[in-house]
């Protein structure tokens, strides 16, 4: 998986792994928007450039096996990677694709990832990731999930 340095176009390999208990000390609201300690009972993953320990993005997931679904509870890029002046692009995309990989690995053709954003930002996820709106919930299923994985899962 790759993120792109927006200023010069350099590509960097990234690693997505479970957040360690020691990481939570550094996950402050200013840089990562939420109090991530509240998510310690869920699967929380961090995205870092390979060979770096600096966390550039975070995602909290809940597996819902009886619905063949992985629900994205929280997602954020780090403060400096938001907006027009972001340093790296594709952080959120890679994290969402990682959730898609978990869903497909567990549930194959039945897999689904979902999120429930506020109305004003739903359009962003529909436009950028081809998510489908049902009620207040956005989702991606097969075959869209496979396309999403293929879009991000390469070196």
């Amino acid at each position, binding site marked *: 998986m790759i993120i792109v340095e927006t200023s010069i176009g350099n590509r960097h390999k990234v690693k997505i792994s479970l957040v360690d208990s020691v990481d939570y000390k550094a996950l402050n609201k200013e840089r990562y928007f939420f109090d991530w300690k509240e998510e310690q009972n869920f699967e929380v993953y961090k995205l870092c450039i390979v060979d770096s320990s600096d966390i550039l993005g975070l995602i909290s997931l809940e597996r819902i096996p009886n619905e063949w679904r992985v629900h994205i509870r929280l997602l954020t890029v780090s403060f400096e990677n938001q907006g027009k002046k972001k340093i790296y692009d594709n952080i959120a995309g890679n994290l969402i694709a990682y959730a898609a990989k978990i869903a497909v690995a567990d549930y194959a053709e039945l897999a689904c990832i979902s999120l429930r*954003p506020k109305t004003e930002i739903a359009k962003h996820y529909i436009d950028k990731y081809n998510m489908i709106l049902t009620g207040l919930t956005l989702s991606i299923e*097969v075959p869209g999930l496979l396309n999403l994985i293929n879009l991000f899962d390469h070196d």
Partner: protein
Amino acid sequence: MTNKKNIKDSEFGLDSRYKSKEEYKSEATALMEARLKRMKNLSKDQIIRAKLMQLKLNMEAFIKQPIYNNRNYFSEFLESYVDTIYSKRSFFAKDISITPAKLSQVINNHREPRDEFIMKLMIHSEKVYENICEFHKKTWYQVYFHEKICDTMSSQEEWRPKIERHVKFSESIEK
């Protein structure tokens, strides 16, 4: 720095948690109904692609971590691969020019896969995965040898006493 969202970015601070059990239930029910309708429209080809993607992801996950148990991962993955693509295992055997009996023995752990078998499997997978997703040619070999390493390391109590009797170190190395 501030977390006030006056600088609006949809990927900085997405809170997607359900606010209550009732909200979760109602959303989950509606979503499942809609998904079941869409699932009915999945083609056979789309289902096979999803299963093959699942297999690839599970193989990659297996390679990444030491697993100590009695499962036969190589043959399980092989069985899943063949059964996903072919209606009869003998068709796969024919495609890689081996007898159905040999294939059956490998799948059922009555025979170790020979080098040539894994090479053929590697080439077959390249063709199958070409239009599905990235599939590294090393994958089948990695699965096979990773399983060997894990098995050997985890069964030392069984093999070590017998083997150790035949291993001596007659030279000396100064500390």
